């Protein structure tokens, strides 16, 4: 996708993340400048997680998701959730823990899932930037209330 089109779509989506949403979900928006969407999750149990979504070529490609600590440093290890979405093993291409969930670049490029094409879900309401973030938030909330 042309960069201007990718940037425009990115900005259209993230500008809808209003104060009510951030407050209701305990989200902190660290950055929303194309191609980076940097969002922190906070829970009542005091846990926090920061996800950095690299959204270059959105939405021809799904976002690449990195785990960061609250200060913005990449995490070399993460809590693995029971469903296996937060995968602590090194991704074959990045060598880092990764998100193993449809809609995330590291899933679609993993040798186990290369047959599960992003193009088949691209554009669906579940797979907007907000939809993907919401799915990840629910994963995280399943073990941090």
């Amino acid at each position, binding site marked *: 996708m042309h960069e201007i089109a990718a940037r425009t779509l990115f900005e259209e989506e993230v500008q809808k*993340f209003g104060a009510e*949403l951030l407050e209701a*979900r305990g989200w902190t928006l660290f950055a929303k400048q194309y191609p980076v969407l940097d969002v922190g999750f906070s829970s009542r149990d005091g846990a926090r997680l920061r996800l950095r979504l690299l959204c270059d070529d959105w939405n021809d490609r799904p976002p690449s998701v990195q785990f960061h600590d609250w200060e913005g440093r990449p995490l070399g290890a993460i809590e693995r959730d029971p469903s296996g979405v937060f995968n602590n093993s090194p991704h074959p291409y990045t060598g880092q823990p990764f998100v193993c*969930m449809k809609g995330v670049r590291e899933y679609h490029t993993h040798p186990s899932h290369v047959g599960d094409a992003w193009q088949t879900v691209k554009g669906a309401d579940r797979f*907007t930037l907000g939809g993907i973030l919401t799915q990840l938030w629910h*994963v995280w909330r399943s073990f941090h209330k």
Partner: protein
Amino acid sequence: MEHHHHEKSLEARVVTTSGVYPETGFERVAEQEHVETLLKKADEKLHITNPAGWIAVVGGRKIDITKSFHQNGLSGRIEIDWGPDHGAGGHA
């Protein structure tokens, strides 16, 4: 003695990553109204075309959108978080 029957109502708003419904404040709805009726209004206003597989959460509790606000034990002023449920792991 004259008896006045007032249908109970509550105030609700729907919060999504596509925006908030209503845009400002809260919408007054009957407690007997089904939750999905309000969500359909939100979908139309916020241009959400296919909310299949989405869940509604109030105060950290998942609610049944096919039931009424009353049946879900909701009253007063509420905020419904509406969005896709968590994705499944790929077991890579």
